[in-house]
């Protein structure tokens, strides 16, 4: 048995400790990514093996927030995959426009860029005033950043190109107040986004929504957990409500995926059909 085989055992023990000591269940996360993240926090904790982290997890609960942050890396962008936002604009927004009120759930919001992108899209199509976006994540540090809505100016400049490719009309900077090399999201946009802690592994339905955007979150889950989450989405969506996944995500592997019909196959946009799974 070499170091790598031993590490496989250590990761299992880590996951068990997190679940039983803190109630955070990573048992159904995809193994390769989880392993990389656990091994990736060794240095920060001053450990040379994963086994050395176990006493910290069990006996130093004050470390939990930073461990959770490391396990759920919040990497995101504004208008990531511009063609998706363009398709939302042309294929989904016209349908959403027929509702008098819109609730949108953006699950796995990380530091907020995607939620604000959706709000800007709604503003540009005249729907923002009747919309509320509920953006959720398990990473509290990321949620705190999302709440602030402050991003470095040079990143906003980079996102401006994606915004343009997504069909945006105004300059992206006009949705921020710029100062000292940072931009703060316009309060008129901010007012329509609420951020909250919600764990897709453990928590239930929290409101009825017309669209769910959950991109690049379920790729980290195994099929069993993906199935649970798709069930949760099915229960949360109104009939004919939309589901938008990440560019390389797929509902085909999970039984609960059967309640969704394809709207745009390439861009992974689906619609809840009448029938139950």
């Amino acid at each position, binding site marked *: 048995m*070499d170091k*790598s085989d031993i590490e496989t055992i250590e990761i299992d023990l880590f996951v068990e400790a997190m679940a039983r000591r803190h109630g955070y269940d990573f048992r159904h996360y995809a193994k390769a*990514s989880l392993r*990389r993240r656990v091994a990736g926090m060794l240095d920060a904790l001053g450990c040379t093996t994963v086994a050395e982290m176990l006493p910290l997890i069990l006996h130093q609960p004050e470390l939990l927030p930073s461990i959770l942050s490391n396990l759920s890396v919040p*990497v995101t962008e504004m208008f990531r995959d511009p063609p998706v936002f363009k398709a939302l604009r042309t294929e989904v927004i016209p349908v959403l426009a027929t509702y008098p009120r819109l609730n949108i759930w953006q699950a796995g919001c990380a530091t907020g860029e995607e939620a604000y992108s959706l709000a800007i899209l709604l503003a540009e199509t005249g729907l923002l005033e009747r919309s509320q976006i509920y953006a959720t994540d398990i990473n509290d540090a990321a949620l705190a950043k999302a709440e602030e809505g402050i991003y470095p100016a040079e990143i906003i400049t980079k996102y401006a190109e994606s915004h343009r490719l997504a069909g945006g009309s105004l300059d992206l900077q006009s949705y921020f107040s710029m100062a000292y090399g940072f931009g703060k999201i316009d309060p008129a946009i901010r007012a329509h986004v609420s951020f909250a802690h919600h764990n897709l592994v453990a928590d239930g339905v929290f409101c009825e929504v017309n669209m769910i955007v959950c991109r690049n979150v379920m*790729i980290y889950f195994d*099929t069993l957990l993906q199935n649970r989450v798709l069930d949760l989405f099915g229960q949360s969506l109104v009939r004919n409500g939309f589901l938008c996944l*990440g560019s*390389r995500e*797929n509902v085909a592997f999970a039984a609960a995926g059967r309640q969704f019909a394809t709207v745009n196959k390439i861009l992974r946009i689906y619609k809840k059909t009448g029938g139950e799974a």
Partner: protein
Amino acid sequence: MTHHPLEVVVIGCSAGGIEALHTLLPALPPDFPLPVVVVIHLSSGAPTLLPQVLQTGCTLPVIEAEERQPLRPGCIHVAAPDYHLLIEPDHTFALSADAKVNNSRPAIDLTFISAAEVWGAGVLAILLTGASADGARGMQAVKARGGICIVQDPATAQAPAMPAAAIATGVADHIAKLDEITGIVVSLCCISDR
């Protein structure tokens, strides 16, 4: 000399990689017995029709590696742009949207490391032309678990930095020109345990 039977071939390349793969992949015989995984860096905005591009001249099917799909013998799986490509213990693919590594997503290191974790000595890793140092750490991980490492001779690579960085770590079992590499691969994978 007997080696643990090989179970997978992983290939990494960057600048000049498409041309190199156009030499390497068509030379694999139609009865090639192992799954092949290809990780190539693309500048964003490059065509995402990579599998179609690489299919030209190949007898083996070239497809994009999709999440939750099992690796198939005799199939060339190409990493999707803008996601890291990992392999699960049950020999299916997993994608990751984590931050870039070595300024790249997909990063060659991550795919090689996860292949080494899953297959140990069953990995044959090949590192070709490229202008970064991605792949060197991955080659070390493959070597540490008893896998075999082939590196393109930097003198023959369109961009020598990447193969040179891997060679500098001292893990290369073979340093060879592209046309020699196919010969080595075929003899290691098709003949040894038959």
